[in-house]
């Protein structure tokens, strides 16, 4: 016996991503991470676990870091989403946090990195002058399998410095 499977429910949604408003029809169950990556082709957001632990999929929702693998895209309506591309998408002109990662050798394969960038970008607004210990705490919700963290911790402090310099200019 087989039962008939109908077409799955979809919704028309308006998603504000990196300052641009998109109108899309998406399945109700489609994850925000998948919509960003597949429908909007913003592949900078990565999926490492799809269960909310690794942080690779972190984006900013109204400036706050959230796991995009734990949200349905339909629930992101009415919010401002910022992905790593929204923080800086020009390799020639990286943002302060991105530059800090270059300076400190804070990445290797780069897969976890966008999640760190979005997390730290939000964090140093909140704490513009972190101690090393606070910096370590700030990134301790994101997994990286390659770099061993100490350069990432340095990158947090360096990013704060660069942001302060930028602000004073």
């Amino acid at each position, binding site marked *: 016996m087989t039962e*008939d499977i109908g077409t799955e429910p979809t919704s028309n949604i308006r998603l504000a991503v990196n300052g641009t408003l998109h109108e899309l029809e998406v399945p109700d169950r489609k994850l925000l991470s998948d919509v960003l990556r597949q429908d909007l082709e913003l592949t900078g957001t990565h999926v490492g676990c799809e269960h909310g632990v690794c942080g690779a999929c972190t984006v900013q929702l109204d400036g706050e870091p959230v796991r995009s693998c734990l949200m349905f895209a339909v629930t992101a309506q009415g919010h401002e989403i910022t992905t790593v591309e929204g923080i800086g998408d020009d390799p020639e002109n990286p943002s302060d946090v991105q530059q800090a990662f270059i300076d400190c050798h804070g*990445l290797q*394969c780069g897969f976890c990195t966008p999640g760190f960038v979005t997390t730290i970008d939000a964090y140093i607004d909140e704490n513009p002058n972190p101690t090393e210990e606070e910096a370590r705490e700030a990134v*301790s919700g994101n997994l990286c399998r*390659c770099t061993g963290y100490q350069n990432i911790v340095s990158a947090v402090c360096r990013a704060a410095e660069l942001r302060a310099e930028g602000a004073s200019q």
Partner: protein
Amino acid sequence: MTTRLFGQKITRREDPRLLTGHGRYVDDVSGTAIAAAFVRSPHAHADILDIDVTGALDVAGVIAVWTHEDLPGQAAERLPMLIPHPSIVAPHTGYALARDHVNFVGEPIVMVIAENRYIAEDAANRIEVEYSFREAVVGVEASREGTRIVHEGMKDNVAAHIVQDVGDVDAGLEGAPHVLELDLEFERSACMPMEGKGVVARWDPGEESLEVHSSTQTSTGLRAVLAAKLEIPLTRVEVITPDVGGAFGVKINHPWPEELAVACAARALETTVKWTEDRREHFISSAHERAQTQWVKVGFDDEGRILGLDVKFWHDNGAYLPYGVIVPLNTSTHIMGPYVIPAFRVEYWSLYTNTVMVTPYRGAGRAHAVFMMERTMDAIAAELGLDRTEVRLRNFVRDFPHPMGLRMQDGAEGCIDSGDFVTSMDKLKSIVGWDEFETYREQARTEGRRVGIGLACYIESTGAGPYEGGHIEVESSGRVNVWTGLTTHGQAHATVFAQIVADELGVPLETVHVKTGDTRKLPYSVGTWGSRGAVMAGNALHLTAKKVRQKALRIAGESLEADPEDLEIDEGMIQVKGDPSASMPLAAVSVLSNPLRYAFDESARAATQFAKDSAEDEPSIGPGEQPGLEEQEFFSPLRSTVANGMHAAIVETDPETADIRILRYCVVHDCGPMVNPLVVEGQVHGGVAQGVGGALYEKMAYDADGQLLNASFMDFLMPFASEVPHVETDHLETPSPLNPLGIKGAGEAGTIPAATAIASAIEDAEGIPIRSMPLDPSTLWHMRTNHAAGELNRSR
């Protein structure tokens, strides 16, 4: 003169792209492809009686459902045994889709192809498989007992067995004033790269060709195996490996069942099919590593000098053996470490179990070897009441090269080609403050704190052959394109190889662009694994650049009417040494090297001033020459280089909760001259982090039925920033005589001794013998209780 780039801490050239979302990982490729999902076995050991796929076919959006019967020709045969070895007595490999029988939880049985992954998974959930269960064989002990057998037709579970020896070990042990025996256990963990595996296969019906993007560590190997399995000419298959989100060994096996099944589907459906592994799939169906049960018997004199070492170990290789015995073989050949051991025997059994197969993980097999040898060194020191560093110093190899008398994974006899272990030990003792530790311990004690110090030394055969190649072309714009057949997963190839090439060619770093993992340009390559990238491709590119340089100087010499010997290249300008007035850009040489008469660009027009009228009676391209400033060269070493290092850790254990904290972690590392110290440090840091994971957290928790109980990041604990200590490093650069650049591998250095160094420190803090890793607080707590009850002794 331009400064030499080799040895400089140059920031990575791949970073700006990766940091701004422009990385291109396999799941970023072809977002419009149709998707595959797999039905996997929920049982560890069972016969498949029936597969009912009808429910899946009703799901809207499903395109195809494949079982083993749908696999064509060679693709339906068993997956290859990639690296045969004389010790393998029973080579069992699986199928792309299981045939009649499953041997581990996670084994792929059915492939569903649908419009997208969501639908493919819906459909997969509706497929019903009927099984007849068999009892599972889980763990070394059950396998060794052999009361239940994994593979039908075998009388036991032994996949491979070998004995290697040097000298007369029985005599060595008999004549020894002291003999100790140790029983040891080493963890089962996994590489766990942040990016899982993935494949995108595109069939071009017009060309009858297959283009595959895969997150593999060996695109050339995958290409060859897909051509063979799909029975199509090699020239009609290309494999491209884009950015890879970490690998650490697990992406070396090929083909993975999914790579083959998806490629077959792409051809059958004449379209592009994609599969991206999810994390649960990665846990239950991608390879694990490490589990071993070990036994050591050592004989030594009153000074702690080893006279004989007898070792046996049992290695859990999981359900299949597609990658052969590299892991246990490496264990067996690395046990002697940096020590002179006059008589040595090692015997191993590699055993089948009903669990995910075991293939190399960063430090492949060597971490286990270090555990055996270094736990033994500590036990000797304890027995004789000697300082642990002193016992090691008395046993160190001091003359190089030091032949080891054992056949290594590359088939050649192992030989420690260079090193200075005494100096390394001095450095380590000084950074960690070894001699002052007792004072610190006393002070900690008065504060009610319990601390311990430990160390571990290791050697690592790196830069295994047989070869690696390079391809360099200088465009008429002056841009230098560099190809290596290697794939890259965070090793900074785009930076370090550019440094090597820029040095040799005398061009600015910015003009050099490195491409990796694309079989279209360099179909001959081995792969990125075993700390071989810099040694193998680095030297190959160095040799290739030399060849390009020679050609450039010859052509320039003709135009400048100078002896090539008198020419040099600096900042992309070729000039007569000491006479910059007679010079021409390398870009112009590129134009001259190709006697094509079209002036496409500025350099071409500029080059006309250097062009000489060709002789009427000679062809434009002489015999044996090729147009273009472009060369290919290969490097093939005599044997592996042997890198080495020493780690020390200081830990604190909580007297009540048995919580373990690493207070200090120090590394002295010798990989020969460092191409880019920033990158080497980064490799060490990352390696240590994985080692810390292996020491304290990571463990595959299988139950007796072969169910993996911790198949998520919630339950399989990988260290976050809060768990990984700051790593203090120092380096020694003893050049290897085995390659032109003198370099040795560094990729696995951080991981290999970490669990052992931490074991040593915990033992020192607790006064309880640590014979098994990983060690979590609750295990340590129970050990304390048992120890207090007199059940655990310092040595057996």
